[in-house]
């Protein structure tokens, strides 16, 4: 399969003059098209920083990130926003839906920014709403929805523009276990049936068990990498727990 994302010796330092924080210290990996990749690690391990660099929200200190062969670390501000709206889809921990807009409009906004014609927007919104089973809440406002519904609307918004990569940052972080399972099931469907490439950052083993491959990050470097490869989700979950135990110390929140 084609490589859709290639991260090369990514380094990101914060601060300067005596107090340098090495958030990411030389990370390299590749993601082929259609894969569901998880990035795990404790708070402060650097996983969100990696995601922010890939999503062009943050800049790198050194190293390169190629998406579909293009080096995004060399892009200018205008190219970046164009790149973001055409190639990337985002799902955030706290949903980040606009509270003044209905579900329909939240999804449509992502397409309107792409300057798609109105007819295309309308049909596409209805299409993704069907895929994520949110058709009946399209006219509701975020404050009228449950957390799980909000996150599915956010997921619909992320995939509406058919991006090359969907980036999810702790998507189940603010959900109860039932909503979380439903969301993850939807993401699984997106990946397996619609062939969406997904990169998800999480510190929760249950959430991570839906991925095909998991990169473990500790103190800014890749500590381990495991693949599901035909295991049942339960076995994969056990394996993840095993790696986390090895990671030790800081992961007391899962143990």
């Amino acid at each position, binding site marked *: 399969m084609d490589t859709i994302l290639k991260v090369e010796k990514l380094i990101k330092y914060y601060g300067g003059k005596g107090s340098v924080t090495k958030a990411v210290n030389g990370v390299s990996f590749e993601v082929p098209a259609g894969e569901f990749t998880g990035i795990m690690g404790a708070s402060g391990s650097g996983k969100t920083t990696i995601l922010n660099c890939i999503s062009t929200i943050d800049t790198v200190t050194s190293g390169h990130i190629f998406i579909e062969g293009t080096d995004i670390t060399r892009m200018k501000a205008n190219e970046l926003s164009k790149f973001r709206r055409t190639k990337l889809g985002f799902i955030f921990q706290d949903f980040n839906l606009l509270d003044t807009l209905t579900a329909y*409009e939240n999804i449509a906004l992502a397409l309107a920014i792409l300057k798609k014609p109105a*007819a295309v927007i309308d049909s596409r919104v209805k299409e993704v709403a069907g895929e994520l089973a949110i058709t009946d809440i399209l006219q509701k*406002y975020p404050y009228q929805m449950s957390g799980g519904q909000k996150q599915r609307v956010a997921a619909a918004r992320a995939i509406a523009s058919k991006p090359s990569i969907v980036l999810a940052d702790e998507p189940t972080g603010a959900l109860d276990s039932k909503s979380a399972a439903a969301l993850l099931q939807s993401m699984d469907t997106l990946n397996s049936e619609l062939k969406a490439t997904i990169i998800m950052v999480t510190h929760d083993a249950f959430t991570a068990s839906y991925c095909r491959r998991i990169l473990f990050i500790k103190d800014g470097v890749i500590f381990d990498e495991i693949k599901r490869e035909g295991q049942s989700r339960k076995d994969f979950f056990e394996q993840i727990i095993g790696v986390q135990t090895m990671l030790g110390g800081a992961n007391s929140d899962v143990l």
Partner: protein
Amino acid sequence: MFYKLAFKNVRKSFRDYTVYFLTLMFAVCIFYLFNSLGAQSAMINLSKSQARSIQSLSRLIGYISVFVAVILGFLAVYANNFLMKRRKKELGVYMVLGMKKRSISNIIITETFSIGIVSLAAGLAAGVFASQGLSAVTASLFKANLKPFRFVFSSDALLKTVVYFGIIFLVIMFFNTVSVSRLKIINLLGASRQNEKFRVSRTGFAAAAFIISVACLATAYTFIIQSNFDFTDKRFLGSIILGSIGTLLFFMSLSGFALKIAQSHKKFYLKNLNMFVIRQINSKVNTNFVSMSVICIMLLITIGTLSTGIGVSNALSSNLESSAPYDISLQKDATQGGGDIVGGIQKGKNGIMNFAGDYAQNSRYDTDITYGQLIPGFTQYGDSFLNSTVPAMSVSDYNSTAALLGRQKISLGENEFTLVCNIDSIIPSFEDFCKSGGTVSFAGKKLTAYAGTSESSMKLSLSNSGSSTNAGVLVVPDSLLKGLKPVYVVLNINYGHGVTDEEFTSMLSSAYPDDAEKPYDISYSKEEVRDDAATSTVFSSYVALYIGLVFLIAGAAVLALQQLSEAADNTVRYGLLRKLGADGKMVNRALLAQIAVYFLLPLALAAVHSAVGIYAVNKIITLAGHLNVLTNTLATAGIFVAVYGAYFAATYFGAKNMI
């Protein structure tokens, strides 16, 4: 320690405070400027009567200032509440750290106090400098000369400003202390996460309310035009009430209604960030429709006072040359006898008439002819005008008055009449009446119109007056008036060579120390007319400017604060747009559109209101002269662009910095 914290807070949040600070400063500046008018007159060579009118103007400004201070007080409290809301989280952190409420109060009081001192000082400084310029404006309005420049400073105005604003700041401190004592930690820390309350109004309701509001406004407009701006007319009150209700309903329903219309035009709604901008405005207008209505009415008052206030005086003073052509006019109500002013003065043997150069007396007699019989088609001034009777005068009085002005005499046949009038808007109707062979019956005789009647023969002022007030006098042959008693007599005098107005009027007043002995009731010299016109210009312009400016900054400041206060929410929203890939240009354009629409909405409705209002007022003012609508509109627009535009720009750039 706490004081250090307070000062650091003020310095740190200076950007948030900019609009608040500028508004206070501006308010202080205006307050000082207008209250120092009395002291400023020290720089101008004023006549005694002018000096007196400046004194009464400062008294009037003093009364208005109390009202203005109340408005500014409300504004300051409102603005301060907004700032307090933004800082809930910060205050919550203080409380979590264990700070006593008393100490928190002290911090807030210190902050309010220091902002108050700085804005007061800056505003006073600006006011003192601006007042030097204002005296030049006053001088030119009075057509008086400036004395050699010296720096004028009014300690009275200073004291008054400090006291009034001191009270305002005390009130703010009181409110802040109360609100701090009611704080609860849980509300404070969660303040930023609290959801905005949404009022989802049903479309049917919004549409109905919108239609009712339009109907209310239409009725109010009709009423105000019909009532001729007569405060005693019931329709005037009705129009005010209906207008207010209509305005409120308009803003209540507008956003819901407009949203539905926009949503049904998918091509527009789903283009770029349109839907985001419309939703932003919709939610803002929905929550703030009451204050938007109030702002709209305040802007209406501003436009109204500025355009007509400056305007009335223009109308009155523009045609002084034709409405007060004589050096002096002596006028007498002759219904109780004494129909000869010249004879009365000469009888006193005081030699006053020797100082008069040329003079001419004219007498007016009652008739039972009404204006309605002559010009029934002239409805501009309503029925009361058409039902009033036309006075008559003799052709020889007409000729002597015309001679005094160096105008052509006329010779009237035994069965002829003509008319005099100096109100431009009526003359064409009289002309039509005469040209179409109009007749009148007077003293049992049928008179036909004098063939030489023309606009130039008719337009004649029979006495000095501040504005054109002669709505029409019938000129008839002398023989027809024989034996009748005049009801009103005027003696117009042009002074003899080298005689000044002051000399002549002082002669008159020393010759007749007792009013009862005067052979005339009132005298009105050209100088007095000019002074009066200048005084009314100064009065109406300054009062209009004062009230107009205060309402303008109050309205603009509230709009600005409402936009800036939700910067925290907007930071998240616009940040999200960026993450979704909207580029900088797109985001900035959306922000600009949001703020521009928010600023323009109340202004647009206020402009429509005032256009109707000015139309109604204009109808009345044309009685006295022409209101120069263009100049006043331009002047008003200039002031609006400067003040409103400044607030708009400050809001846009402030908001842009925050997102």
